[in-house]
């Protein structure tokens, strides 16, 4: 298709710009003022708040535009940037993740004497990358966002640079991440080769017509298929679906808890939104060749595998961070069900609840594990439950939320996904998912067994609660209960926003 008008609308990317500028400011500010650790946090938080406010402005803009019937075509920069409720909803999630991540990191950086300015700017850059992924309407842009976000996260994973595990984590993440990026890029290239365009909506048109948009010749379907398969593999890596999940446990275990909390929530959600955009928009149309039916059936199998592998392997883990790593794999499986039900709102809500409870859980772990996070083996926690009752109960609530216990956000997330999927007729998937949820309660309660039911060493001191972890835990608790008890407002916002997004089918 011909290039769209070069629409340089900076207002549409204002949140991105704000966050990027915040990152640069942290870097500069830190360079000139070595002792300004806490100021950096305030810079970051201020940036996040401003970005959040401008995102909210844009949300209202989209709402108004969609009422006028032009909501599906708010694009800028030649269609590189798409402005719709889906991108904005996910941007909100990234900002929340960045917000909690910033607060949580404060004490760990101070205690271990790691330089804060790079950390906070990397956190911001990673967030910008994710935001770009959410709002891109073009494969090139998605790739760009992905790289910005990933490279920053590779560094973050290795931030505890004197710790071998952290180094291992960063290296593994880097190598496997690069591999998956290569898959993605190759897939994008092949799709481009088949369709002659990188713009997602144009790809959809090309596939519908079955012609290459550049040559106007019939499309080479085989190339398209290989490209789509490569994209599936690439995104499978990013959101950690089985069988592309093997990097997750090692990386999550080795990285500092604050970073793990961030990267298990943010980049995963970003992977989901880009995945959604490419597959549900570009590869949606059913044509003479059954592209859509093919990838949906593959993804169904992947979703089932992901849930089962995530949950089953988690059962036998003894390290709390590995348990949560496998649980994050399983959660990707649940979210995929919302994906397959073709309902982005349930995926967004699920990722939001997952992010909040996951960050909360990792915040508790960062405290319980003690100095330099030496004690992540569950056995070392024996009998600590009544000593640090508040922390343990917070962990219990996050774990129950992940298991899908009512009153918590996790339940509402699962409930929404299951409801939507059942409505769309994905009965088998829902049944598999609930059986998996039932099994998952075993390992989510494992920490409680160790904390409360076992006798511990009387002399082990209760862990010291740093105030940054304290604030994070409180916020995450408030979020978990808010999402679980009063999701009505959010539901109606998302409900209204669902159809303003150009999801074909």
């Amino acid at each position: 298709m011909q290039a769209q008008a070069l629409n340089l609308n900076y207002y549409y990317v204002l949140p991105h710009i704000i966050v990027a500028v915040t990152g640069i400011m942290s870097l500069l500010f830190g360079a000139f003022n070595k002792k300004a650790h806490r100021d950096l946090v305030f810079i970051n938080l201020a940036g996040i708040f401003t970005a959040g406010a401008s995102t909210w402005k844009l949300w209202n803009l989209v709402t108004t535009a969609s009422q006028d019937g032009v909501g599906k075509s708010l694009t800028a920069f030649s269609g590189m940037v798409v402005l719709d409720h889906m991108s904005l909803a996910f941007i909100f999630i990234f900002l929340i993740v960045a917000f909690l991540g910033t607060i949580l990191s404060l004490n760990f950086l101070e205690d271990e004497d790691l330089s804060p300015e790079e950390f906070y700017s990397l956190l911001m850059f990673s967030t910008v990358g994710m935001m770009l992924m959410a709002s891109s309407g073009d494969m090139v842009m998605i790739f760009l966002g992905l790289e910005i976000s990933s490279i920053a996260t590779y560094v973050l994973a290795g931030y505890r640079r004197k710790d071998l595990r952290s180094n291992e984590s960063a290296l593994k993440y880097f190598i496997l991440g690069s591999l998956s990026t290569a898959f993605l890029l190759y897939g994008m290239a092949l799709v481009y080769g088949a369709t002659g365009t990188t713009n997602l909506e144009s790809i959809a048109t090309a596939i519908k017509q079955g012609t290459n948009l550049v040559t106007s010749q019939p499309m080479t379907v085989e190339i398209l298929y290989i490209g789509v398969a490569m994209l599936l593999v690439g995104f499978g890596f990013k959101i950690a679906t089985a069988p592309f999940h093997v990097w997750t446990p090692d990386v999550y275990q080795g990285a500092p808890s604050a970073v793990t909390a961030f990267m298990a929530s943010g980049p995963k959600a970003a992977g989901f939104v880009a995945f959604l955009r490419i597959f549900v928009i570009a590869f949606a149309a059913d044509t003479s060749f059954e592209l859509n039916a093919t990838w949906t059936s593959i993804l169904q199998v992947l979703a089932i595998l992901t849930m089962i592998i995530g949950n089953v392997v988690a059962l036998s883990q003894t390290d709390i961070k590995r348990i949560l790593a496998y649980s994050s794999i399983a959660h990707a499986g649940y979210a995929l069900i919302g994906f397959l039900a073709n309902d982005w709102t349930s995926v967004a809500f699920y990722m939001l609840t997952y992010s909040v409870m996951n960050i909360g859980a990792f915040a508790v772990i960062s405290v319980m594990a003690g100095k330099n996070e030496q004690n992540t083996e569950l056995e070392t926690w024996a009998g600590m439950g009544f000593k640090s009752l508040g922390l343990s109960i917070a962990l219990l609530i996050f774990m129950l939320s992940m298991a899908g216990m009512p009153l918590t956000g996790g339940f509402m997330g699962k409930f929404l996904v299951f409801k939507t999927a059942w409505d769309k007729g994905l009965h088998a998937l829902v049944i598999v998912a609930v059986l998996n949820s039932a099994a998952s309660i075993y390992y989510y309660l494992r920490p409680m067994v160790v904390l409360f039911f076992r006798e511990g060493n009387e002399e082990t001191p209760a862990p010291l609660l740093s105030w940054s972890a304290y604030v994070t835990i409180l916020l995450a608790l408030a979020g978990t209960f808010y999402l679980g008890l009063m999701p009505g407002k959010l539901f109606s916002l998302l409900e209204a926003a669902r159809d303003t997004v150009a999801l074909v089918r």
Partner: protein
Amino acid sequence: MNALKPYLLNILVFFPLLGTIVMLMYDQIVGKNEETLKKMALFFSSITFFASLPLIWWYNDPALIVNVPWVETLGINYHLQVDGLSLWLVLLTTFLMPIAILSGWTAIHDKVREYLAFMLVLETGMIGVFLAMDMIVFYLFWEVMLVPMYFLIGVWGGERRIYAAIKFVLYTMVGSLLMLVAIIALYLIHGENQAGGAKATFDMVTITQNLAQYNFLTPTQQFWMFAAFGLAFAIKVPLFPFHTWLPDAHVEAPTAGSVILAGVLLKMGTYGFMRFNLPMFPEAAHQFAVPIMILAVIGIIYGALVAMVQPDMKKLIAYSSVSHLGFVMLGMFAFTEMGMQGSLYQMLNHGVSSGALFLIVGMVYERRHTRQIADFGGLATPMPLFATLFLIIAFSSIGLPLLNGFVGEFLILIGTFNSTYSRAFAAFATTGVILSAIYMLWMVQRVVFGEITNEKNRHLQDLNLREKIILVPIVILIVFMGVYPSFFLNRTSEKVNEIRKVVETHKTTTPVATTN
């Protein structure tokens, strides 16, 4: 008093929770004082009990209903209501709770604050389950109640407590998550049908009415939903062969936990059958009736036989629960007024008698730190009052006339005999009555009567004041329920007949196999 009515149900649900919060805060302010904490818990649970008493007269009053929107986009309402079905179960809960708290007065010295907090949260959950009239709210209480029970077993339980606690949670979760799927499916189907201008809602009253009126579920849908709800409830009841979690949980739980488990938690399963399965899926209920009755009869006989050979008193009572709950299920699926009334009555009887038996075991365990029947003998000599009360409670469990058990079992057996189903069910179930007399009396005989075989038993203290306060109200209730059952049954008959009529009018002759 009337001004209280709109708040009463909320008070019942949340007053215990308030107690939890106050106790946790109190500890922060004043410091640890076991005695005060226990008194506070007793206070909160007793107030809840007294607050629940007016329900006996008000239960049909529409002024009691609480119904406010919760999540409007999905049609979830916070809907609490009490009716003939839930009335006595709520009262059973509130009645047993102070007793359970008293029972742990001297036995629990470890982490008292947390123990009592969990007990009160548990009470909130149980009352919520019985009062909830919205499927999501019901599911919420149903699930949330697992957590305190899990901790009660896991922290204050016996030797194999971790295994028992996890088994209890896993079994329940599998069933209840499938129930969640059925709830979602029912909600979606009901919403799509728009029968009678119905909006998508999780409201149980509305859905039950619309289902009865428009009957928009296909037989296959009914079949699967009955199965999904039924599995969750059958695990909780527990219906043979889903009962294996029960002996473990009962034996490992602390006395108060066992009392609540036997007294109330198991009733949530049978209550669920009456509340959901029968009125909502009546055709499927007919299809499932025979298999369930067969399982119930197997449970009656199997539970009794296994109970007979148990050397451990707690285990014996646990298996007797399997047997007694079999009666409840049998009577319910007879679909006759007598059977169903008896079933409901037997739920209460079992709650009172089994709860009391667990209390009795707890009392001897506190004195001797063993529950093996073989370690006892001749307890009547040092503990005459104990022996008397034990005997009365055992008789009530067996079903001696003039005591409560008799009324329930008699109604169930007659109801089953007169039902359209084979009379063999009643005949086989009757053997359960005989067997129960055997294992109960044999246990009583070996524990209470005869010569004192163990010198340690010679100087045991008889019941102290606290234990008298625990047991005497129960024994009074046992006798009262035995001689004046109409006080209870009059209040349940309307609702039970309503359910029975729904089931009766939807009778089809389709056998199970052809519906798939």
